[in-house]
């Protein structure tokens, strides 16, 4: 089977998957022993039968469960994800509004995790059981085990409030207007518009949340890289490479790291998916208006259309990251091509 046919088939498989997920999330959302009416109407409005009836009719909540679901699916096929009960804006617009902020943060987070995790893992494996290995292992332990909440506040307190070398919460300073929207990623948009001050400010605002968000993945990647490198470095071909008289750097990076990368790529793929979908705490503390916060607020107010939209978006993110991981496997490991 050719590469493109294989990936096309994988992409098509995502369609029934997403529909299945939509059904499961619809059922779960409806099983909650609570009522979106109670969550979205105030005390007094909820006590007024006329207002309650108007609310149920408006959101189709007076229909039986399956009618609601099939109406939803039908609209979805025509590209309509419905309207958020909570914000009264189209769900598709909401996802587009919040996703870029999260993509920007998660991407920065995974870059931090990679830049820290891979080198630290390699160093730690090469100088196994030396002091530098212990230091690296302690760093990765902190990354994996420190609660996001604590790490974020300590980082803010130290680098923002005391030392004043990094800006605080938000994606930009209050006085800097957002760049004209193209991608929704402030860094890219500022670059496109040539607004250098905005770009610098957006990058500076990214550093702290990205480090905090990436800390866990960095720790994980360090560990996986270390153990994968240790396995690989004990292989015969490494001994062969050394005996050929290759430089140690070439042996470790070309022959060692490249072969150790496979499990690392899997972890990176999964971590990226997690960062894209699970950044609620980081987004809350850093006042970062992203999809994690949107998902949290939607769930809290039983905003069915938004919950459905977020669930399907998350499903797609995982399908896509898995697909990309598989493609990287294909490129990194020639055996898969056989």
């Amino acid at each position, binding site marked *: 089977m050719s590469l493109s046919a294989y990936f096309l088939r994988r992409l098509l498989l995502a369609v029934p998957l997403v529909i299945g997920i939509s059904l499961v999330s619809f059922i779960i959302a409806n099983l909650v*022993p*609570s*009522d979106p009416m109670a969550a979205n109407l105030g005390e*007094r*409005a909820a006590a007024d039968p006329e*207002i309650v009836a108007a609310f149920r009719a408006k959101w189709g909540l007076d229909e039986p469960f399956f009618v609601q679901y099939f109406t939803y699916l039908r609209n979805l096929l025509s590209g309509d994800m419905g309207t958020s009960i909570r914000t009264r804006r189209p769900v598709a617009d909401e996802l587009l509004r919040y996703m870029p902020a999260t993509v920007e943060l998660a991407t920065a987070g995974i870059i931090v995790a990679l830049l820290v995790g891979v080198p630290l893992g390699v160093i730690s494996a090469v100088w196994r059981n030396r002091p530098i290995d212990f230091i690296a292992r302690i760093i990765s332990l902190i990354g994996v085990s420190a609660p996001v909440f604590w790490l974020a506040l300590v980082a803010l307190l130290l680098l923002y409030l005391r030392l004043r070398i990094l800006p605080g*919460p938000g994606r930009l300073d209050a006085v800097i207007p957002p760049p004209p929207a193209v991608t929704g990623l402030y860094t890219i948009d500022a670059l496109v518009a040539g607004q250098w001050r905005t770009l*610098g400010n957006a990058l500076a605002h990214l550093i702290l949340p990205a480090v905090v968000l990436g800390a866990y993945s960095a720790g994980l990647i360090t560990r996986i890289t270390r153990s994968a490198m240790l396995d690989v470095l004990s292989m015969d071909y490494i001994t062969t490479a050394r005996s050929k008289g290759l430089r140690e750097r070439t042996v470790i990076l070309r022959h060692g790291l490249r072969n150790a990368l496979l499990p690392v790529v899997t972890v990176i793929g999964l971590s990226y998916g997690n960062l894209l979908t699970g950044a609620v705490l980081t987004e809350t503390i850093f006042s970062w208006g992203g999809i994690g916060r949107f998902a949290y607020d939607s769930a809290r107010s039983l905003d069915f259309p938004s919950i459905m939209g977020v669930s399907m978006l998350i499903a797609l993110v995982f399908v896509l990251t898995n697909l990309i991981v598989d493609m990287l496997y294909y490129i990194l490991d020639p055996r898969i091509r056989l």
Partner: protein
Amino acid sequence: MRRLYGLLVVVSLLSLLAFGGAAAQEEKVLVVGLSEDYNGLDVHRAYEPGGSLIHKIVYDTLVTFPTDSVSEILPNLAESWTISDDGLVYTFTLRGDVVFSNGDPLTAEDVVFSFNRMKNLKDNPAFLADGIVSVEAPDERTVVLTLAAPDPAILAKLVFDAFSVVNADVVRAQGGTDAENASEADTAELWFNDNSAGTGPYMVDFYEPTVQTVLVRNPNYWGEAPYFDRIIIRNMPEAATQKLALEAGDIHIAMDITADQLPSLEGNPNISVYSTQSDTLIFLLMNQDPEIGGPMSDPKVQLAVRYALDYEGLKLLGGAGTNTPAAMVPLGFAGALDASEALPRDLEMARSLLTEAGYPDGFTVDLRYPDFTYIGTQFSLVAQKVQADLAEVGITVNLVPEELQVSLEAYRGGRHGFGLWLWNPDYYDTLDYVEFLPGGVVGKRANWTDENADATILELRDKVKVETDPEVRNQLFREIQLYEQQSGPFAPLFQPGVHFAYNATLKGFNYNGQWRVDLSLLSF
């Protein structure tokens, strides 16, 4: 790899440079940190306290409160008004000098449109207009409001944001309507998020949901021009973040400070703190229906609970500024009993009441409550305190924490036998607390109805609902509260404190329960 590191270094240097140079600015900007609780800025759908901060300075209402209290009704868009002898017809005379932000003069038609749109949208605040039969504009400067029954609270209700007056022509042009079917036909809601059509000192520039709301000065404002050119309200959902940003000088006011943050702020000379009792009433509900409430439906048990609670100890759970009301009308409202008139803790009395009720050895009961924290008050801690207090008189309380929405549904459906809840005023008149009486919104949740209540309280309730004379009203409220202390399905616990912290150079900070802070009066 090395190239990547090089790039990172360059990028970090660049960003530090940009951050350092971002200070200079010519216009006067006020930045407020707020945990955003609103999802839109359509003023006729307004219901959340956070939104009040904005609506207050973008729109005006016919009448208003003083900036620092809710104790009296003052003229605003209406310069005067008369009330018919039967209390049914209110005739307002509008000021002649008011213009909207686009320069159009205010007319009585705008008021009619605004009130009808609010009522017919049937959104959260619409119940406030329930008693209004008609709004008419006999001439450009006269508005006639007719009620179905006398409503002593109507002027206080008219202060609420949802009764704000908008420019009818502008809103109609955006798809707004005041027709009967407005709840389906009106399409102006989203327009309000990036625009406004009010007479207040500021205009909405844009609203970026969950990020910020930006207001700019209204160039056509009919009153005294405010100090700040621009007000930026940044969404900061986390109180710890607000505190940090205030200390760093990035925001000027933190709207959601919690009691445990106060000690570390008080030593900071650059920051002022304002604490007061909130209008939130935290209380226990004991269901009148024996099927649901079990022993809790017994009036003697209910009184025993009120005597068994350690009010002084409970007060500590609300933090600085917390106070204990004597009955179900919070302190600060006209006619509320003084705190000193509260029932004392009397364990002997509680035990003998329980014996009289047939429970000499006590009983076991579930206490259901939403497991959440509201303005700094952790409900789980309050529930534990109630459990400990009642254990002293032999009542064994099982704590049943519930997810907020699930718990809310059971509570609103009258299915909580013994519950821990809170109530915020819908409008600033004591009449809102008639809801705790038989047949009221909260009364019904305790299954306290006209059928199972006694004649004394029903008579008091019916009288106070129509009484307009302030002194007679206060006397009636007094009798109602004294009744509530002895009988009825509720026990008041406390009003937690609310706290604000702001840059010490900021002048003109005032607090009022309705809109909290009037941002247009602030200056450096």
